[in-house]
């Protein structure tokens, strides 16, 4: 072999740099910009905590002052607050529960790949891409008492005075329906990805060994899908309990305070009654709930990531 090269043994670089100091700082340097942005958002968060401990109403600037937990105490004694909690919980439980059931059902239907199921799983993504607020307005158009196509359909079905979101009896049903329209595809797509990521061979083995279908579903499919179900469910729960867009765009919390969920209530307190302190206190309660939920979520999620990685 000819040694025409310039960079043979002699080209061994003389410059030698130390790496230790640089290497330790590098990850911090890289994450610094994102970190600073993060701090910029942590400050208002701290401020919000402070607001919730103050007497603070924009309409009465003179009365502003630190009052410790008085806001929380009055909150917990207030029936409207408990109404908010109840509505939020009802909304969350209904949406998450129904969407999980429906989502799992649809995912199982779409599991087998055919032209139809492939087309349908693409179709399902469309509602998901529509802004929830916009989706809500679409449904508002469709449920309009004068010309709404859905109002027409239900009247044909024998409910001429079905008033959808304008009636306190059906308002919750209406917004839950919109939520389901927007977010069931999310659960479906996640669970479908989970189902399709399941190894095929165990099911072939079960087929070969003649294991009954119900046994396969409850002892194999469901446990294997559980991490996905939990992830999807918790994800949705965190969103649902904070729902604002759909409800606000549909009724702004009405009729009356039928749909005054946490964030709508807080919005109303802040922007209608200018009571910043009370709004902050409500949001702090909401934050505490989401914090607990998201911790559960993150733990589950990390386990999932590890497993996915271990298998790959």
């Amino acid at each position, binding site marked *: 072999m000819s040694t025409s090269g310039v960079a043979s043994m002699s080209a061994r670089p003389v410059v030698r740099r130390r790496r230790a100091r640089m290497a330790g700082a590098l990850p911090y340097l890289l994450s610094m910009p994102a970190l600073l942005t993060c701090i910029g958002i942590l400050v208002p968060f701290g401020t919000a905590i402070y607001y919730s401990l103050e007497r603070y109403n924009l309409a009465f600037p003179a009365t502003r002052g630190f009052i410790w937990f008085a806001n929380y105490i009055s909150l917990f004694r207030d029936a409207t607050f408990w109404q908010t909690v109840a509505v939020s919980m009802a909304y969350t439980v209904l949406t998450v529960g129904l969407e999980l059931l429906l989502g799992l059902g649809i995912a199982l239907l779409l599991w087998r790949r055919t032209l139809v199921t492939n087309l349908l799983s693409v179709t399902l993504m469309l509602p998901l891409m529509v802004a929830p607020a916009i989706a809500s307005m679409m449904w508002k158009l469709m449920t309009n008492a004068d010309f709404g196509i859905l109002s027409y359909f239900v009247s044909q079905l024998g409910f001429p005075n079905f008033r959808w979101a304008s009636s306190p009896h059906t308002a919750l049903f209406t917004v839950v329906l919109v939520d389901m329209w927007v977010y069931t595809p999310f659960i479906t797509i996640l669970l479908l990805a989970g189902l399709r990521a399941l*190894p095929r*061979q*165990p099911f*072939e*083995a*079960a*087929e*070969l*060994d*003649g*294991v*009954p279908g119900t*046994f396969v579903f409850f*002892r*194999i499919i469901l*446990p*294997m899908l559980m991490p996905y179900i939990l992830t999807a469910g918790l994800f949705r729960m965190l969103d649902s309990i904070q729902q604002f867009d759909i409800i606000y765009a549909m009724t702004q919390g009405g009729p009356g305070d039928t749909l005054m969920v946490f964030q709508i209530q807080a919005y109303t307190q802040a922007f209608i009654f200018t009571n910043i302190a009370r709004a902050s206190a409500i949001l702090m309660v909401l934050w505490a709930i989401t914090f607990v939920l998201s911790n559960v979520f993150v733990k589950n999620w990390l386990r999932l990531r590890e*497993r996915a990685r*271990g*298998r790959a």
Partner: protein
Amino acid sequence: MTTLHMDKISKVYAGASERAVDAVTMHIEDGEIVALLGSSGCGKTTTLRMVAGLETITDGEIRVGNRLVNTLKPSQRNVAMAFETYALYPPLRVRENIAFGLLRDRVASAEIEKRVKRIAAMLEITDLLERYPPSISGGAQQRVSLARALIRNASVYLLDEPMSQLEPQLRAVLRARIKHYLIAGKMTTVCVTHDQTEAIGLADRIAVMEEGVLQQFATPIDLQERPANLFVASFIGEPPMNLFPAVVQGETVAVLNESQEVAFHVPLPPSGATSRLGDGRRVMVGVRPHKVHVGPGEAVEGSALVGEVTSNHWLGDNCHIGFRTRGCFVIAVGDRDVAAPLGSQIPVTIPSDAVNIFDAETGVAIQHGLNPAVLTAA
């Protein structure tokens, strides 16, 4: 515990134009162990899956015993299978995984317990019975998968790459124990593998496949000594067969070296082989490395050569010697004590009966050993 007959079975996958499996015929005896050997994509796994009922059969017939199983569901065929990817049920314990297949046979639980215990001991997974599959190593999962298949009372046992992930130290002993278990239980077995040592070690007969076509279906010794074509010759054996281009010249076959010059002659027997081979015909000459005789030793009939040793791989119980002789590179297997230092000149003999001759164009074997026995005519 029955026969398995495949008659001209073919598989064409939807949307594919090529046949993944092309008219494969195999008649497997009751209690016989057969290996399907080939490189990845040769159709061996597809064949196995057709037997299992996991793939539809495009053409041909499969019979388990006297029963035509073409249209039967997998569960109706009474076959047991160990999957290459293990196919264990992750939510179930190892013990439940193994016993799962016995569910529908309604075996009594005490009996299940006993059989699980026995098979677990054989495959050395007794300590893992209460664990979950994702928490044990790949090699252990593979053993569990084997256990799940072998514990069943099936007509035919299908093993897909059953030992590919086993720890090397465990492989030899499990191979022997499984072979003992299969023979003792008279279990009809088809084992798919890409590893020829696996196939040779385990099987009574080996089916070598390539590009969907069955190349040869014979005993391990036949495959080694009488390969049907060049593919089988170069696929079977470690080290693989030495192959040289050659030309029939009168009463000898002239072996050509890398520069297409005649390196040495292999004499043909006086049994009229020349007329059959045809003077001037281009052929390939194959010599099994372990048949090449290294060193002086007793007189062996064949071509005596002198080689320069270019490599000597000492492997403990034998050694692989690479040498050049007149522009040809030859690998020989010798005893562990053969003295062949690098660079030295050693006497070598290529015994006449170790020479296989193949047609240069079609690769089909013409003659095995230059003794009168002739297997194939091109």
